[in-house]
């Protein structure tokens, strides 16, 4: 995908300028996909998060001037964050769009479409567990968003709504840009949020995921919500959250081989 390559190149540009950069844009986990090429249902949100010193900016990277309207609509709708920037790419150059003017940032952007190798399927993929996991995950996200709405908590999603969400055949799942579920404003502080659906009160998090959350803490703290459902997933019984911090949590090995951390000593119940 050319747009993905352009966004990656602009992200790399900022990294070279000593920004801390978190890519928020969609990354295709396959070398080619006809479904993605024709997919027009991607959710719209900023493409990269930039941080330098203590200043951060959510940045849109647009390839068409028509998208300025969409950016402005998003910014207006999510004005609980005031740090937005819009970058516009055209003919190997990119500009900052500011006050209805285009300010040249660089004219040396050379997007490359990278080819990559396939990787082995995971345990869950091999055993076709992903559909079930995804269904539970989606249910939890929906319940959490509903809770945010009920309690007037300002937030936005970072879910791509990509066709990959229902695809069990990615060539290289590691290439998919796995993000927290969204951004949340809580008592004046910005968090990444992540929903985890459970059928029992097991407050465990995959160690690998936890390391990724800790990496994201350099931008914003990560708040993991546990949504406890009844056995047949018909009702969300309770909701808890855990704020990700570096600490020695008890570990255990699950039957799928994953190492998990037990964070039950550090949870807050909110429902």
């Amino acid at each position, binding site marked *: 995908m050319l747009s993905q390559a352009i966004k990656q190149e602009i992200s790399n540009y900022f990294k070279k300028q000593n920004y801390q950069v978190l890519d928020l844009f969609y990354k295709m986990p396959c070398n080619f996909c006809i479904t993605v090429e024709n997919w027009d249902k991607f959710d719209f949100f900023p493409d990269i998060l930039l941080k330098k010193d203590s200043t951060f900016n959510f940045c849109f990277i647009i390839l068409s001037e028509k998208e300025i309207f969409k950016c402005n609509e998003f910014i207006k709708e999510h004005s609980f964050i005031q740090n937005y920037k819009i970058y516009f790419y055209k003919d190997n150059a990119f500009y900052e769009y500011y006050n209805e003017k285009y300010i040249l940032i660089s004219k040396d952007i050379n997007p490359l479409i990278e080819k990559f190798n396939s990787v082995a399927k995971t345990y869950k993929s091999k055993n076709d567990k992903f559909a079930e996991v995804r269904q539970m995950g989606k249910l939890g996200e929906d319940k959490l968003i509903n*809770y945010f709405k*009920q*309690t007037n908590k300002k937030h936005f999603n970072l879910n791509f709504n990509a066709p990959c969400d229902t695809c069990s055949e990615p060539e290289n799942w590691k290439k998919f840009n796995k993000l927290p579920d969204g951004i949340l404003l809580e*008592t004046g502080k910005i968090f990444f949020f992540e929903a985890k659906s459970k059928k029992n*009160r097991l407050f465990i998090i995959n160690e690998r995921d936890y390391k990724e959350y800790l990496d994201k803490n350099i931008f914003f703290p990560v708040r993991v919500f546990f949504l*406890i459902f009844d056995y047949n997933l018909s009702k969300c*019984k*309770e909701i*808890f959250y855990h704020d990700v911090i570096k600490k020695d949590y008890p570990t255990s090995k699950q039957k799928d081989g994953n190492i998990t951390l037990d964070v*039950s*000593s550090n*949870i*807050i*119940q*909110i*429902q």
Partner: protein
Amino acid sequence: MGYFFLDIETYIDDEVKYSALNPFTTKSKVIAIAYNYYNEFKISEKIIRKPTVLKEWESGEKKILQDFYTFAKLKIPDDKHFKYLGFNCIKFDLSYLMGRLITHEIDTPENIYYNLFTAPHIIDLGQISQILSNNKFKEILNINQKTTNSFFDLPIKQGTGKDVTKFYKNKEFDKIEKYISEEFSFELLYLKLKRHIYKKETMIKNVVTSN
């Protein structure tokens, strides 16, 4: 079918000592709200966990009151059997919370009363524990949590509510948390009381039997 176990800690002012019992003095304040909610038909020992503690010293009194109230307000319509459980929670915890919620104008007094007293059920373990009181008058008399816990061989907290204010003034917040966690044995106490009642035993009978 939810069980909302609840306990609060309040501030004792040097000059207005009853600030800890009366929510309407100028010095009244909730220092901490501890709770555990189990959305279950029945609870058992194996699901008991450490309570959530909302701390005034971290977020301010108004915020912890809002968080507690939001919890109850959202959950009660969803759980027709929602019940508050605590020790002396009718006379103290819920009444004091109502006063503070009204003072901070978290909601209308009408709604606050509805969400604290009208809609939910309340099981006051302090009231139930009175049937255990072993006194020479053979009356149903007040009994404190330490005595009740002792009868059931449950852990007994060190110190009293006065110590909480002392810790609070000295910013010894970890000691407050320790106090709260020792005091918060309501789930076990509920189970013990329930089983005791269904066995139709009393403390007097028990003493006679043991002699």
